[in-house]
């Protein structure tokens, strides 16, 4: 008997478990879009060149078109459908909406997922190609417009919404930093 070309897998997406049989050739992107009806993740090139299919895998950015669905088993997958908290938009989503960080909207879910990754990576102290001081003790560089441009360059936008995308990421990062500071303060007060 020839080896099977499909398997039943369980994917953990946005906190929910989905069990499905998949053809081993199926990418995570196609599993999301074609099998699970999670079409918010977009297919712009299917070659890892445009970033439209960006999702978070265990909190880190990944292009889902270059990931086989079978290899995503056991990982925590966050797609655009899982970014908002119920009806309340995530600050990144709200900033894209308010500042018009998009036009046609097709690259937008990937941009937003990527922005979530950027804000976390930056907070964790990861340098980028435009970071002046990359010594570990230097700490996170200021999240300047140049830092955002560099870090968001894996997500192409043909409509040319980059200027407002940069503004939206900056605004959301500030909001998150303020929230984190508030949380830290509350935490300190509680400890006292």
């Amino acid at each position: 008997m020839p080896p099977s070309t499909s398997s039943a897998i369980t994917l953990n997406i946005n906190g929910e478990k989905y069990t499905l049989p998949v053809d081993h050739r199926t990418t995570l992107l196609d599993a999301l879009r074609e099998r699970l009806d999670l079409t918010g993740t977009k297919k712009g090139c299917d070659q890892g060149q445009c970033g439209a299919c960006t999702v978070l895998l265990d909190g880190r950015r990944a292009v889902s078109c270059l990931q086989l669905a079978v290899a995503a088993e056991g990982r925590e997958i966050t797609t655009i459908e899982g970014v908002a908290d119920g009806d309340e938009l995530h600050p990144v989503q709200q900033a894209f909406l308010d500042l018009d960080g998009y036009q046609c909207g097709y690259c937008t879910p990937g941009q937003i997922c990527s922005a979530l990754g950027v804000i976390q990576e930056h907070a964790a102290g990861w340098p980028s190609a435009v970071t002046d001081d990359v010594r570990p003790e230097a700490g996170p560089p200021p999240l300047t417009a140049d830092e955002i441009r560099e870090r968001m360059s894996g997500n192409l936008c043909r409509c040319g919404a980059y200027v407002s995308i940069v503004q939206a990421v900056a605004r959301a990062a500030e909001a998150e930093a303020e929230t984190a500071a508030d949380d830290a303060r509350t935490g300190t007060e509680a400890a006292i």
Partner: protein
Amino acid sequence: MTTATGTPAVTGAVGTAHTRVEGLAKVTGAARYAGEIPFAEMAHGWLVLSTIARGRISAIEEDAVLAMPGVLKVLHHGNAPRVDTDYTGLLGRPDPTIAVFQNDRVPYLGWPVALVVAETSEQAREAAEALVVRYEEEPHDVVFAAGRPGTYTPDGSAAQKGDVEAELAASEFVVDAEYTTPEEHHTMLEPHAAMARWEDGRLEVVDSNQSTMWVAGELANLFSLDPSSVRVRSEHVGGGFGSKGVRVHQVCAVMATTAIHRPVRVVLTRRQMFSLTGYRSPTAQRVRLGADPDGRLRAFAHESQNLTSTVHEFVEPSATVGRVMYDADAHHTVNRVVRLDVPTPTFMRAPGEAPGSFAMECALDELAEQAGIDPIALRVRNEPDVGPLSGLPFSSRNVLSCFEEGARRFGWADRDPRPGVRRDGRWLLGTGMAAAAFPSNALPSTASVTAEADGTFTVRINAADIGTGARTAITQIAADALRVSPGRVRTRIADSDFGPAGIAGGSMGTRSWGWAVTVAADELRERLALGGTVPPEGITVRSDTTEAVGALAKKERHSFGAQFAEVAVDVATGEVRVRRMLGIFAAGRIINPLTARSQLVGGMIWGLSMALHEEAVRDAASGGHVSPDLAGYHFAANADVPVIEADWVDDEDPDDPVGIKGVGEIGIVGAAAAIANAVWHATGVRHRHLPIRPDRVIVAGTGTGSATDAVTSDVAG
């Protein structure tokens, strides 16, 4: 049931920033594009493209593929339904290459020779890749060059007055320069996708396009169907830029659903898009300017040449923009074409104006340099009162206000005109400017506006929102006409059953649709003002602007603008960085400042991308593209784009009910020229060939010549 009167009148939506009405759906991933709407029993089609550039198909070995798992059908010229291309559609005669599988001829590399239909897209793709197609290959010719044999002048593509040679001879200053622009691709992020099915005797197509009326009409013609039996919808469109009209994916989906009696979806791959969805032709242009000592133009001559396929003529009218922009005693403009074994090019954002303004506005800058006149002053000196060739009045022409406002905000007055004298570390710095113009037209449209019993309103118009913000602008326009808040207006678009309306193209969309919506909403408001109650089915008023649009007085109707750019050039690495751009536009009344600014800035980014990055390279040996993907074809990424500002001056169109002109394309016009002129100002070298690649900058920067144009090099000391 509610009373129709009694609510206070609200206006002021137009001109106020509004976030997109479909914004929530877009930022949450809920907005479904054409390839994302599920249908029961749907099969998947995958295209097989020719691997030769010219010849005949001698065999398609389908039997092996038909035996593969899940394969339902292999469509090809031996079994596909016949279609008719002998018709005149909305935009003229169709490109015959949309009629796939009709014969064994191969007109270019990457042309569909078969469609494999299977249960899943993986099965369809594997079978498509396994399908053996045999060819009788013939020699092909894909090499485009200025003046190459076979170049011809299509009827009606030249315009002239006066004797250019005589005026050039009498001129104090003469510029005679050749410019080229490469093949460029739309590369919108959403690939073309369509689902077709037969439902209750009608053909239903869910597609991503710039006009469902256009696509429905073409499909009805191609398949000899009653137009009323075709319904095309296109709710969300992931970018169009001129490429999303009738394309082979829709034709294939219709053929396949007809053959297998199930819904069929065909989605193009990114690589397939490079040969199947149109592109901007490369251009070879020559501009000759002759001027008096004070800079007044005596002669203006602009010749442009582009390529087209062997089977369909497409003219990229690059030489046409000067007919509006500048007057001269002698004025000659002509667009020429050469037929090659390539796909047919098509409209791409500002067709003609984008490449044409690059050549023309760079030539003006060269004249300003020669004559020792400021580039803005030179343009002011040549500002026409009426259409230079038509003699018609302008509906409005506020380009001087754009220069003035732009110069003030950019800091132009402090500019030292000398090239190659500013330095910031390894960077040479320069600034440049250019003018912009793009036609402002309207297309006849129909609309309906319904007063609902619950006090809300529903607008139905066959518009397309390809990222322009049209849905939101229409909502604002309707709200003002109805004197209610936009929150009470629901706008439904992109359904061919709504009736005819203009296309989302040529910067005509919002103007055309806004007109029809205003007429219907005005009448509805007047009817409701009479009092009474709204019945459960609502009160609907319909409009048709055919007569009103046709009655517009003949005028020169255009948007205008002024583009400014600052660049930094490292002549050692060849790197060019745009540091800032400013565009000031006179583009009619701005409906939604938030989304209009996005469109204008987006257009300017296209100009930046055109100036520095974009270039599709065709391989003469194979006849196909080198690296047809988003890595091989680079358009501006986030890190390529600096702070870019766009703004506008008052410029209401007095003949439009809403005052609109259109903002979709004007942003790209002149932008590449402003950057190229800034590169000259930084380095003293004229770059007349786009894109301004690092290798071209390095070669020019070392003093061996002006890029590939050594004869006319002008390298600063």
